[in-house]
């Protein structure tokens, strides 16, 4: 069964066709990368898939169910979770509280019980915070649990977002440029992290401009350009595609890839 199927989807912003007539599928268990020049529509695509934008045409099927027009929190319940290119951290909360919010769907939502602080709520708080601590540990932020998110460095926040997204226990995790602003060593840590996530059975959709990371982890790559599909295939196929080289990789991309392999 395909996990996600996008069919002939389009969206435009005041005349700009951010996504145009795009169709593709994502298989479960994949690390599916989406690359393309700046402004190709990658983030927009994420926004469409996670319900923040509404497509003007086309369909999105998740596990063979049409999810078009569903609000983001419903989609989260179905198993979709993501991080953001422009960080969306809860800055007034501590690191661990950020992750605890990610557990929202796995907690009871009985407001009356919350108000009265029934014993079940206390126990649940403990469970949630234990789980959150586990996830912070997983992304390497165990020591920062009680630090206010506002005081954490950029790189740490990127990982905090990943931990929070994982707390949702998604079937599919969408990462928007997780390695941006990271140096090569930190990028390798992210690389490792992504592979570990994939190992737990979560399908990863990755948008990233760091070609070493992309080529290294992806099982499948979709290349977008100006909202349309430019190419698709395995890392090796995409890398060799002259159109992709011209529109996206350029000399730098190839050089990096060369260094990555050499």
């Amino acid at each position, binding site marked *: 069964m395909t996990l996600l199927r996008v069919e002939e989807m389009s969206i435009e912003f005041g005349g700009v066709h951010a996504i145009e007539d795009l169709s593709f599928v994502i298989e479960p268990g994949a690390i599916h990368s989406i690359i393309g020049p700046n402004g190709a529509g990658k983030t927009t695509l994420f926004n469409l898939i*996670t*319900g*923040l934008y509404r497509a003007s045409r086309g369909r999105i099927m998740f596990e063979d169910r049409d999810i078009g027009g569903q*609000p*983001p*929190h419903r989609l*989260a*319940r179905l198993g979709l*979770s*993501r991080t*953001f290119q422009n960080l*969306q*951290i*809860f*800055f*007034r*909360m501590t690191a661990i*509280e*950020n992750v*605890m*919010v*990610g*557990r*929202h*769907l796995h*907690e*009871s*939502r009985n*407001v009356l019980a*919350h*108000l*009265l*602080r029934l014993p079940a*709520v206390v126990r*649940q*708080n403990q469970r*949630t915070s234990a789980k959150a601590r586990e996830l912070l540990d997983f992304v390497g932020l165990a020591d920062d649990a009680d630090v206010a998110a506002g005081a954490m460095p950029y790189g740490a926040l990127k990982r905090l977002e990943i931990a*929070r*997204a994982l*707390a*949702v226990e998604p079937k599919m995790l969408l990462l928007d440029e997780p390695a941006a602003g990271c140096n090569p060593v930190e990028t390798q840590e992210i690389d490792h992290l992504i592979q570990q996530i994939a190992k737990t059975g979560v399908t990863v959709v990755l948008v990233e401009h760091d070609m070493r990371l992309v080529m290294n982890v992806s099982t499948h790559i979709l290349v977008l350009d100006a909202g349309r599909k430019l190419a698709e295939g395995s890392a090796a196929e995409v890398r060799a595609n002259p159109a992709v080289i011209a529109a996206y990789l350029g000399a730098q991309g190839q050089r990096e890839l060369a260094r990555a392999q050499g």
Partner: protein
Amino acid sequence: MAALRQPRTGGLLVLAAIIAVLPFLLPNAYYFDVVILVGINALVVVGLNLLIGYAGQISLGHAGFFGLGAYASAVLPARFDIPPLAALVLGAIGVGLLAVVIGRPILRLKGHYLAVATLGMGLLIFMLLSNEQDLTGGPDGMAVQRLTILGYKLHGVHTWYWIVGGALLTGTWLALNLIDSPTGRALRALHDSEIAAQVNGVDVVRHKLTVFVISAVFASLAGSLSAHYSGFITPNSAGFLHSIELVTMVVLGGMGSTFGGIVGAAVLTALPQFLTVFHEYEHAALGLIMMVCMIYLRDGLLPSLRQRLHWRRS
């Protein structure tokens, strides 16, 4: 012991202790009166702080809910022969329902747009209360029957002191519970980023509505208490100035600090009593104090003080 050090439990105990000790320190009924008013305002502020301080949704119309609660307690017994206690409960339920109906459309608005919508809501309620003269007595207000519980008529500042003190303690406890719960975390999350909150499964609309209703019910109950306590109400209690006063209490005490809100309520309720020494400069002094506090203690009285103490210690 560890539980004591938690701000929740520790703070609640301190509050309970203050409420228990205060009566022995107050010389006469006037001071009781001021303290009771502080308690009533604090109860509204504790609820409002959930909405403004935690969920980040401004309301410039909460006095409207306060006024509706007060008038429910005045009008229902006087005109429809409903027992006061039932009126109080009916008022709270009615206000809660009203908050759902109003909240649904307006909570989609953001920032200043929400401010203007809630302002409009407050004004509409105020207009209703002052125009429906036959029901509410109009701008001159109306008298309120005494609250009777089990045939016992509640009057005298001492009785009311304990009632209001108990209500405040309970309200604070409920608010603190809520904050340290999934709902509370969702509220704080949507304050910082609605988008991220949604993507993490938080039903933003529902949570905003929930906290709006809770804060409205707090206001309504406080309004009812205030009506029964003072025995006479006018539409001013639902007016814009009162709304502003309430928001100022929240912000002055410290947004997102439940105990801060109580401090804010205490300061702002008691302040005019001290400022009478300035005679005609009373209002100028009040304005100046508001400005100076917000400029130099911008996180609010309690959080700022706490920070300074920390600072000194480290």
